[in-house]
């Protein structure tokens, strides 16, 4: 089954796409594919930054609708994934400002399937040590301030310093300082 058929069956595309212009139909299809692939990740990102589940669900959908609107208006989207996380991060920052809440994060240290996969390159001892290090870093990530953690996560999504700074409403040099501080603090925890 091709992606369009899957998306239609999922209800992501209107059943009848003939009423849409080819460009709009293509954007809808692309957004449907991205929604399928990234909705869980965006939702986890938002709940991880303190949004309650119901609001995170709503905001997750907003992110994809915003992307669709941007595409429709002819906006230039270089990295779709980066774009999605940028909008999601803005949502999270707006939420912090509105709620003025302090965020206490505890990461899930029960390993997921990816973490359980064995790496053929490492001996069992080295694997255990590697995972233990990852676990310590994950725990330290949870202890970072919400701004520092967001800096790290957005950089992981490929955002430039100026883009991160814009989302957080700070200068580029402040964003760089936060990023360096976060990396150094994680480094201290992992050793």
């Amino acid at each position, binding site marked *: 089954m091709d992606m369009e058929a899957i998306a239609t069956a999922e209800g992501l595309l209107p059943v009848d796409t003939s009423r849409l212009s080819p460009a709009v139909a293509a954007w809808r299809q692309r957004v449907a594919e991205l929604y399928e692939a990234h909705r869980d990740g965006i939702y*986890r990102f938002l709940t991880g930054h303190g949004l309650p589940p119901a609001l995170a*669900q709503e905001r997750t959908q907003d992110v994809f609708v915003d992307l669709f609107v941007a595409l429709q208006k002819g906006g230039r989207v270089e990295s779709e994934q980066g774009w999605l996380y940028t909008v999601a991060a803005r949502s999270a920052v707006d939420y912090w400002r509105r709620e003025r809440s302090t965020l206490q994060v505890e990461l899930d240290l029960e390993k997921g399937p990816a973490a359980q996969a064995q790496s053929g390159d490492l001996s069992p001892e080295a694997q255990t040590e590697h995972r233990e290090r990852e676990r310590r870093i994950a725990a330290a990530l949870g202890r970072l301030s919400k701004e520092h953690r967001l800096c790290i996560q957005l950089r992981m999504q490929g955002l430039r310093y100026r883009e991160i700074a814009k989302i957080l409403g700070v200068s580029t040099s402040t964003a760089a300082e936060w990023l360096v501080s976060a990396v150094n603090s994680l480094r201290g925890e992992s050793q």
Partner: protein
Amino acid sequence: MTKHLSQEELLRYLDGELSKSAMQTIAAHLQACWSCNVEFDRLKEHIAAILDAETNFTGPSAPPPRPWPRLDKRLDEAMDRATTPLWKRLFPIPERHVRWRMAYGLAGLALTLVVLSVLRPEPVSAREALRRAAEADTARLTISGRQVARQRVRVRRTARRAASARDTQLEAWQTTKAAYWNSGADPVSAELRARYQANGLDAALPLSPQTVESWVKIAGAEPSASETRESIDVQVVSAATGKEDGLEGVALHVRRDGWHVDEMTLSFADVTYRIVEEESVVLTRANVPPDVLALLEPQTAPREAPASAPALATGRDGARSNLDDLEMEIRHDLHTAGADLDGSLEISQSPPDEVVVNASRLPAEMREKVAALLGKRSGARVELHEPATAGSDGRITRIIPPAASPSDRSDPRLTRFLESENTPPNYVRFVLENSNNVLTRLHALRSLAMRWPPEQEARLSSGAKARLRAIVENHAKATRLAAAELSQRIAPLVTHFGHTISAESAVTVEGPWQQAGVSGLAAAQRTDRTLRSLLTTSEMPLSPDEGIPMLVQGMRDLDRAVRVLPE
């Protein structure tokens, strides 16, 4: 070289966040300075470790919604907004000096409203949509005693943590008294069938008014609807009672033309099934294949072939029965070797005369043991490599997370209990290990229950039945022991908070072991989650006031399920 590079300079260089001249200066410095070069490599290695940690340890969140709400309505609204000019949205009333335009405009609006009211589909509530669909589909699929309904559906199974989905096609037949699902050796169909049976839907088609009504009832919550011109999407997010049965939600696609449910998505805690109707027809008995008719009316056609019959000489049922015998013999041997405990083993039939055992995901030592055990056995094929289509959802690997350190625990009562002299060292670890033992056995039982639901167990030969019984009894015995150990271990914790774990000793519970295996696993999983939320650095921490009563209830449910298991 005047001085070494700072961490910030290295990171900015790595990220390309410096001016062109600064980039060149640092590049030159790195070439000249071993110390900074090594430090640069360490920084890259550290960033790789951060990436791995962020990827492998999931974020602190409630599980994502299942099923996700549909996006199409929101996209339609966005499109409408985009195509309406801004001035029309901001200034809906025309200027005063163009009153005639307003008159035309109002007339146009009135006309549009009339047209819309004629063309626009009548809005209906979720309940009303379900009622109309039930009425229409019942009329469509109603059969007399001389008729048989046949349904073909496509099933897509998506495990919650697996990246891939598995598709299968299923044909089901129904008379006024019974239903038969031609699932063959396909594990997805067999698993879905077991879920239906565990919820009392033995004699139902995969997608029928009866089925829809039952699942909605099990979800136990008010449905909601979103409408398009052609269809209505009804969603039911399960209430607490539905979730206790493992059902997270039900989504239905109702077509407006003819009020017909042509798709249903069942979301369970661990897996989602999307069932899409391909065809539903009512046939007279003369048009039903005799072997299907025999399966629907067992009194007129005994199905069980003698265990000793040759594999291919007794026709379809006989061959199948012998293959079942062979599979059961192999399962029994693997069970005796202890290879069926971590959920990694995949066993399937490859007609006409082969049973395939995929041991690729077992630990190396056990893999060798299985290869030695079955390598030379006639009719058994052992696969030691990963099958191309296999998902990773079957494996059960539970990592016992670190106990929360005292500073992580917000409740001082829990800290006092865990640090008390009466509480043994490593208490949390032992509790979680006990819980893990219970889960391991119940996973094995559930896996057997899915493979051999009651109706399929009844069709086994006496030898195969006896072997299955022996495996089940063995797992049941181990489950009872592990559950008793767990109960004993957590009793002091529960008592510390003024509760007791009371077994309902006077209650006699009966039922198929398959159902007990499924419900026992659900109870054990709830208990395990509660324990982890209470005692470890969990994503969803619980206070003792919330967690202890849940723990007591979980243990009671587990006890009830374990009682049904054979002695």
